[in-house]
C-alpha cells in the first residue's frame, strides 16, 4: 500500500526537513564558526580558556550532528516521495517548504535556546535581545513566505508526472 499525496503533496515534509537541516548548518557554520558570534553554550560556559572553548566546540559538533541527521531524514523522505504517480513537483512549492523549514528552525531554536534555556545569544552584548528578536522575526518571515508558496492554490490542478509515450 502506498501513501497517496494530498493537496499539500508528498514534497512538503522532505522540503521542510531539508530546510531545517540547512537552517541548522547556516547557524552552525556562519554564526558559530565563521563569524564566531556565539557557540552552543557560550552564555553558560563563556569560551574564555582552552577547556571552555573545547567544551563549546564539542556541543557545536553535537548540534551539527543533529542538523546532519535532519538533513539525512529529508533526503530519505525525498527519495521515498519520488515514486508517487501524482506529485506536484513545483519548484516554488519546494522552495516554500525549504523556507518553512529554515524559518521554523530559527523560531524553535531561538525560543528554546536563546530565550527559555539561555544557552547562547545570537550576538552577545548590549543589544543581544534585539539580535535574538531579529533572529526570531527573520524565522517567522521565512515561515510566512514559505507558507504563501506552499499553500494549495484555488483553481490550480496538481501537476501530474509526465508519462512515457506508449
Amino acid at each position: 500500500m502506498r501513501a497517496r499525496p494530498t493537496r499539500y503533496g508528498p514534497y512538503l515534509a522532505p522540503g521542510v526537513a531539508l530546510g531545517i537541516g540547512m537552517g541548522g548548518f547556516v547557524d552552525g557554520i556562519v554564526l558559530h564558526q565563521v563569524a564566531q558570534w556565539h557557540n552552543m553554550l557560550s552564555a553558560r560556559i563563556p569560551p574564555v580558556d582552552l577547556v571552555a572553548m573545547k567544551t563549546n566546540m564539542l556541543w557545536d559538533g553535537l548540534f551539527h550532528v543533529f542538523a546532519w541527521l535532519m538533513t539525512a531524514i529529508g533526503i530519505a523522505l525525498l527519495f521515498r516521495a519520488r515514486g508517487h504517480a501524482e506529485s506536484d513537483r513545483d519548484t516554488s512549492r519546494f522552495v516554500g517548504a525549504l523556507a518553512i523549514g529554515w524559518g521554523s528552525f530559527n523560531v524553535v531554536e531561538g525560543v528554546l535556546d536563546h530565550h527559555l534555556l539561555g544557552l547562547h545569544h545570537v550576538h552577545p552584548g548590549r543589544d543581544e535581545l534585539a539580535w535574538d528578536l531579529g533572529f526570531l522575526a527573520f524565522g517567522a518571515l521565512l515561515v510566512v513566505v514559505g507558507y504563501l508558496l506552499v499553500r494549495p492554490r484555488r483553481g490550480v490542478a496538481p501537476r501530474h508526472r509526465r508519462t512515457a509515450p506508449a
Partner: protein
Amino acid sequence: MNRLLACAVLGTTLAAPSLARACPDCASTIAARAALWDDPSFAFHLGATTAPFVVLGALVLALHRLGTSSSSGDR
C-alpha cells in the same frame, strides 16, 4: 637553485601538517579534552541541544502525515 627552492617548499608543505598534529599530544590539550567529559551538566546540555530537533522532528512527522495519506492504496 630552482630545484632547491622547490624542495624547500615541498618539505615545508609536508612538514606543516605533522607540526600541527603535534598539538593534540600536548599535555594541556590532553587535559582539556579529558575535562570535556567531566561536565556535571552533561545531561542538561544534551537535552538542550537535542530539544529543538525533537520539536522540529515532530513537526516534520506531522507534515509528512499531512502531505500523504496512508488510508488508500495505489490508484
